[in-house]
């Protein structure tokens, strides 16, 4: 039994759903960000595997994954900066306590 594209896609789908589960259940904002990193990695795995198993394999799948990594790095930097700024102001890290704009 050889490895096919389906193996990698099923693995990526399971990883994606684990990340979604974490993003919903975590209360801590840093925990939510870490679960989102799992989601990004699932997407990247899909892209790289799809590029690898094309009839004429090329590097475009890896290229897209590279762009996703750059966007994820920017997202992670900004998210952590916002968490740090809110923490300095109000000493909260739980996402449901960040309700400055609620009233």
């Amino acid at each position: 039994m050889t490895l096919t594209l389906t193996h990698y896609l099923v693995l990526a789908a399971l990883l994606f759903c684990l990340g979604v589960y974490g993003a919903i259940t975590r209360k801590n904002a840093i925990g939510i960000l870490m679960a989102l990193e799992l989601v990004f990695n699932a997407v990247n795995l899909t892209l790289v595997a799809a590029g690898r198993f094309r009839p004429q394999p090329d590097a475009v799948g890896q290229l897209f994954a590279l762009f996703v990594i750059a966007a994820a790095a920017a997202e992670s930097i900004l998210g952590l900066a916002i968490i740090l700024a809110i923490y300095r102001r109000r000493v909260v890290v739980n996402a449901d306590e960040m309700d400055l704009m609620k009233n």
Partner: protein
Amino acid sequence: MAETILFYVLAGLLLLSAGLVVTVRNIFHAALYLALALFVVAALYVMLGAYFLAAVQVLIYIGAVVILAIFVINLTRTVTGAPVTLTRRWVIPAALVSALTASLIVVALLKSAGTTGAAVPAAAVGGEGAAAALGRHLLGDFVLPFELVSVLLLSALIAAVVIVNKDGEEDR
């Protein structure tokens, strides 16, 4: 055959560590399990022939993103000595939603498994040529997104400095 066994070992390790990332109660441990999960993804990239991407994954994700997350965990924890345990909410709805989504995608994938093609010979892509091909794409037909990514990263960097800095000046 050895490749298949290696894939299943890595897949099990990946799902185990990812499950621990989203369920373990100590957030510091969650960050370390995240590093393990990202490393296993890098190993899968090597299996797919994407050597350059595996190096980028280790350098940027484990070397920068996880370390940054650990820094922020420590910064938001040690000031007050607040407990590091994580509370959970909506466990059953979240488990239901993700399990249903997973079963939907997996069933659809397995139904279309015959049409997604057979395995490609290992030497088809990858190796040292992949990095060169990536560079040629980046400065060739993908040069506009490449430049846009540099603008995105620069603006994210400046925004992060401004967000963290201004607040401290005003309040202290």
